[in-house]
């Protein structure tokens, strides 16, 4: 027999799994009223998108790129030095990890030219339930970032 039914773990579910094992992160999901291609082409341009939607990032610079692996440096307003992130960037998926901070972005297309978007931020530390109370704080941070993404995308252009 061939062609057995196969389950899938799309990028949104991958991010949910990480949120399920990292107690110090906040995850928020939202349906964006923009086509997937528009959302992801904006987000994947990290140097432009991240400073546009995240008020904690003054600038982001790509230092190195090897296929889906990037090294980037972000400049925060209150930090005297740039923070380096190892980044994994592919269609619908972006995971940015520095020693003290983790950012995850995932998107899948929805019918009607809309996009299911998930965003995660927090401390990349596993197995410390004591960090769990930080989740609401990071969810508020993430909600602000998603609001910023919605604003940056703007209203749906006529005809889309």
């Amino acid at each position: 027999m061939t062609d057995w039914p196969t389950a899938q773990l799309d990028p949104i579910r991958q991010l949910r799994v990480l949120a399920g094992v990292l107690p110090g992160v906040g995850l928020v999901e939202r349906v964006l009223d923009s086509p997937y291609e528009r959302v992801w082409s904006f987000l994947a341009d990290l140097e432009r998108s991240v400073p546009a939607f995240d008020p904690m990032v003054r600038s982001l610079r790509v230092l190195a790129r090897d296929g889906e692996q990037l090294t980037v440096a972000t400049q925060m307003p209150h930090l005297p030095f740039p923070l380096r992130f190892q980044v994994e960037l592919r269609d619908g998926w972006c995971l940015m990890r520095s020693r003290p901070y983790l950012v995850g972005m995932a998107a899948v297309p929805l019918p009607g030219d809309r996009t299911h978007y998930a965003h995660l931020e927090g401390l990349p530390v596993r197995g410390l339930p004591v960090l769990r109370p930080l989740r609401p704080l990071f969810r508020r941070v993430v909600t602000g970032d998603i609001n910023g993404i919605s604003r940056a995308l703007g209203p749906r252009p006529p005809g889309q």
Partner: protein
Amino acid sequence: MELQELVRAAQRGDPLAMAALLRALAPYVGRICGAIALADGDDAMQETMVQVLRHLRSLREPAALQGWVRRIAVREALKLARARTRQVPVEQVAEQAADDQPGLRLELVDTLRQLSPDQRAVLVLRDLEGFTEAETAGLLSIEVGTVKSRLHRARRAFRDRWQP
């Protein structure tokens, strides 16, 4: 990165390694969860991956990863499939429209739906994964005789469906 190296890095808590491990395991876990949990396969797969990463540090030998993951996937898929069976009467299960997949796959899914979750688990481990009856019994913590009877009923359902 080699799989064993990936497991070690994920055990140390590296989120990038965890994500890479999810993708490496996805085809295998997806096959087990999809065939046992059917419509709940994606949820079973997600829960399997949470359990895998949550308990990864208890895996002492990375070479044993696949067998360890298999046990978790079968357990999580059975849990969700049994819960659905309790919620949905059998006659409704048989009448549910199959996925949006055409042809043989639709018939296969429809036939699988008419089996109990436990029968599907035996069928998956014996006919999809190729385990012996004794190995299947060990994996499911049941007697070999129970494996034989469940397998007999499952295969008969397929014969009834496809043989004139």
